[in-house]
């Protein structure tokens, strides 16, 4: 193969893979904005010709979806806060101290990954009913935080490890305590990474289906709502819900695209 051929082939492959990712989302968007009509339309259009203000209006007026979206936002925001509150200090401990028990702690963190959510969600339903946490966004956030805290801890640990200890020591020598040194030197440097980790915690909760479905009845998250109406509600409502689920994720990946490696490459082990 000549280099020109090779480049052509490479770009063909790249283009096909991009289309493979994007076209299905585009088609879902067509279905979501097409309203009631598009569900029964045959054959379906590949271009958004039937799109009108009416159909978009219908999309925005689907009531149950938006109520569920609000619950999802609440739960995800609380999950994010919990992940940061618990994950940042723990990550700092793992990154900066060698202490007895650090190994077992790491193991506990890694273990959470090997266990399906189902195994936690089942007994917690009972406990949450007793505690009044059942069917609340906070209850859902608590369970999602079980998944998000270990993740945030590992990501923060690798973030802090990437900040030379010397910088912190310089802060101490020039008048900082451990806490002010952390605030003035470590935190500003780790902030972009911490932001990425918190967005990730948000999306993790946003996307989770099983626990959210088991822990809510009336105040369903978006995922739980969509799962419960799978067999009964009209297709365009399902498509609309699917699209609302996807949009924040697409934005999220865009925001953190430069940090994906730090999070998945190192954050995983």
């Amino acid at each position, binding site marked *: 193969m000549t280099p020109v051929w090779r480049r052509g082939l490479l770009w063909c492959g790249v283009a096909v893979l991009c289309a493979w990712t994007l076209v299905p989302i585009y088609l879902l968007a067509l279905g979501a904005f097409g309203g009631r009509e598009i569900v029964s339309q045959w054959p379906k259009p590949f271009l958004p010709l039937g799109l009108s203000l009416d159909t978009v209006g219908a999309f925005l007026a689907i009531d149950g979806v938006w109520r569920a979206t609000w619950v999802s936002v609440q739960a995800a925001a609380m999950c994010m806060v919990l992940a940061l509150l618990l994950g940042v200090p723990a990550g700092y401990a793992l990154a900066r101290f060698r202490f007895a028990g650090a190994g077992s702690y790491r193991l506990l963190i890694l273990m959470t990954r090997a266990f399906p959510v189902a195994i936690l969600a089942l007994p917690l339903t009972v406990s949450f009913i007793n505690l009044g946490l059942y069917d609340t966004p906070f209850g859902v956030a608590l369970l999602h935080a079980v998944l998000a805290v270990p993740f945030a801890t590992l990501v923060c640990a690798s973030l802090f490890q990437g900040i030379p200890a010397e910088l912190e*020591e310089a802060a101490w020598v020039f008048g900082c305590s451990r806490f*002010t040194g952390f605030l003035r030197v470590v935190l500003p*440097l780790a902030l972009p990474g911490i932001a990425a980790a918190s967005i990730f915690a948000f999306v993790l909760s946003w996307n989770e289906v099983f626990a959210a479905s088991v822990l809510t009845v009336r105040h369903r998250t978006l995922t739980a709502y969509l799962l419960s109406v799978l067999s009964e509600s009209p297709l365009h409502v399902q498509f609309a819900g699917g699209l609302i689920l996807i949009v924040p994720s697409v934005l999220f990946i865009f925001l953190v695209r430069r940090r994906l490696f730090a999070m998945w490459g190192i954050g995983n082990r």
Partner: protein
Amino acid sequence: MANITIDRIQKAFGATRALEEISLEVHDGEFLALLGPSGCGKTTLLRIIAGLETQSGGRVLIGGRDVSALPPRKRGLAMVFQNYAVFPHLTVAENIAFGLRMAGADKARMQRQVERAASLLHIGPLLARYPAQLSGGQRQRVAVARALAVEPAVLLMDEPLSNLDALLRLEMRAELKAVLAASGTTTIYVTHDQTEAMGLADRIAVMHGGVIEQIGGASDIYHRPRTRFVGGFVGSPPMNFLRLPVRGGQVALGGLTLPAPATAAEVVLGLRAEDLQPATPQDGFAFELRVAEPLGSHLLLTGTTEGQLMRVVVPYADGALPQPGQVLHLRPNLDRLNWMDATSGVALETRA
């Protein structure tokens, strides 16, 4: 300004002992270099003085005050780190002002000090830049300026020049010496580079295996090493060591007969490469040449004497190089003989 007293400091990392009972006195305004190979404990000692590491035993006193239990920020010192540790999220000016800001200095003083430190190190035009926009040498200057801006009683430097290229290092060395001499700050300077230590310091403490082998001025350390290690570590080429038998209170070296300094069966004679002159077979010893390397103004000769490795530096102007295999005759400068115990390697006191 303050003196530093290090009183029987020990440090163990688990079972390994990094420092064995080190005691040391640094005078007010003195520039002391801690010199040694990597792993000798010099950086550990510096970090203990800074409070970045906790000693296993002993005390550190700064200006007569026991600071052993204090965190770094309460010890009244400044430090220049090996990798500079210039804060990447702050401008040069903010970096230099960092220590003053932490101390709660007022704006006017802060600005005055920053400008003074910056002009001292010739980085005035860079004050608004971020470290990422600076070269390694410029960052180094920022690190030093940051330390000087707080007018510390004690300045600690941890191999501050080791990350610069050779030419820059030479330039910074001269500048550091001038700047620090003007400030009169008590300085402890860790390095593994003997030329740095000799060029900068009032006194040098040579460390090896967690102990200080010798403290003294540059000339003392160079010409009168107290141990075989010091002689071998300081100087390039290192000191030559000849293991010689003692017979009847005398040591024979070729045609020379030297009075033995001890009654042991063997002694070690330490000779600097440049303390040897050409001689005749009667008043010198034989040196069989293996390699001759011209070094500009001098010639470095490597060969053997009494079957032992020997390096000699002789002035060299021009002309033919001596050939490998050639036998030369040399005699040592008798004022510069260093006798050492053959087993312990410790210098034997002759007529002082």
